[in-house]
């Protein structure tokens, strides 16, 4: 008797992890977002017509672009950090600093892009 091993998504997300845990979660969201984008892209090209047009309309919308740009940029920069730390394990002593650097690179790049996307997309 006993409770089976069970880790719900909610329980996992409730865990109060360190700064690296947030980047871990955002990395998965980024990967998922890109997966959704690519799937929509393929479906739109494959079916074409009205259905394809609707899908096109969604992923070309500036709000979706803001989201997908977050996914791509975050996934890339975070992936780079992990790759560097994996290749030089000695640097893992500075993992917290590495995460700060990552945010320092990501935030300005992302904000500039959002500014441009919104200006162009929202016709400003």
């Amino acid at each position, binding site marked *: 008797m*006993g409770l*089976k091993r069970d*880790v719900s998504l909610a329980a996992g997300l409730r*865990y109060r*992890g360190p700064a*690296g*845990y947030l980047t871990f979660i955002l990395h998965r969201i980024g990967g998922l977002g890109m997966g959704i984008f690519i799937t929509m892209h393929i479906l739109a090209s494959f079916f074409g017509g009205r259905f394809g047009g609707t899908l096109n309309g969604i992923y070309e919308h500036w709000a979706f672009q803001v989201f997908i740009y977050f996914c791509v940029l975050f996934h890339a920069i975070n992936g780079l950090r992990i790759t560097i730390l*994996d290749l030089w394990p*000695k640097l893992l002593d500075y*993992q917290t600093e590495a995460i700060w650097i990552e945010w320092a690179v990501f935030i300005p790049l992302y904000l500039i892009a959002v500014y441009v996307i919104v200006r162009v997309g929202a016709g400003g």
Partner: protein
Amino acid sequence: MEITVKIFRYNPEKDQRGNYVTYKVEAHENDRVLDVLEYIKGKVDGTLSFRRSCAHGVCGSDAMRINGRNMLACKTLVRDTGANITVEPILGLPIKKDLISDMEPFFDNYKKMLPYFINEDPIPENGRERLQSQEERARFDETTKCILCACCTTSCPSYWANGEYYGPAAIVSAHRFIFDSRDQAADERLNILAETDGIARCHTAYNCTEACPREIKVTKAIGEVKMAMITGKLD
């Protein structure tokens, strides 16, 4: 001061699922969460079950989630948790009763690492010891500190997602022997860790390092094992 302690309760003889019970008790800010649990068990509700042995951060038996993060109850002060404390079992292992997890799957993974000294050479004739320089000893000092509490493994999102993953604690144990210059089974352990449920499941989330009550740099140890696997070098 009065504190509020919300504890996960589960009685396998009565309950289908767990629930939370809240206790209001007096505590001193220098009390440890373990003292609070002992007080509740002794004076308020004798049915409360949890593991503990040494009460001094040595045996590793009282790992639990305290305010959402894995810690040893005997090393966590009320001063640091505040007056509202939530205590839950560690995540990712079956639960036997209240805060008592079934540790078998955890130790099964540990055993897979061949966590014992392997050296087939005869013992040196002139001395009773296999000698090692201070530098060689220092190489794996960090991972000798592990007390097998499971705080790291049960804080790991990869382990939550896949209970077959050996988990950080097992890799820390492997590291302790892989980098021991007197040991001869490093290759064997690296091969075990190269399996599907081995080291590749670590996605560098760092929860493990933060959770370790012995302050072992778990992710770094894992990183070193990964590198040893890729380069074949043990330096």
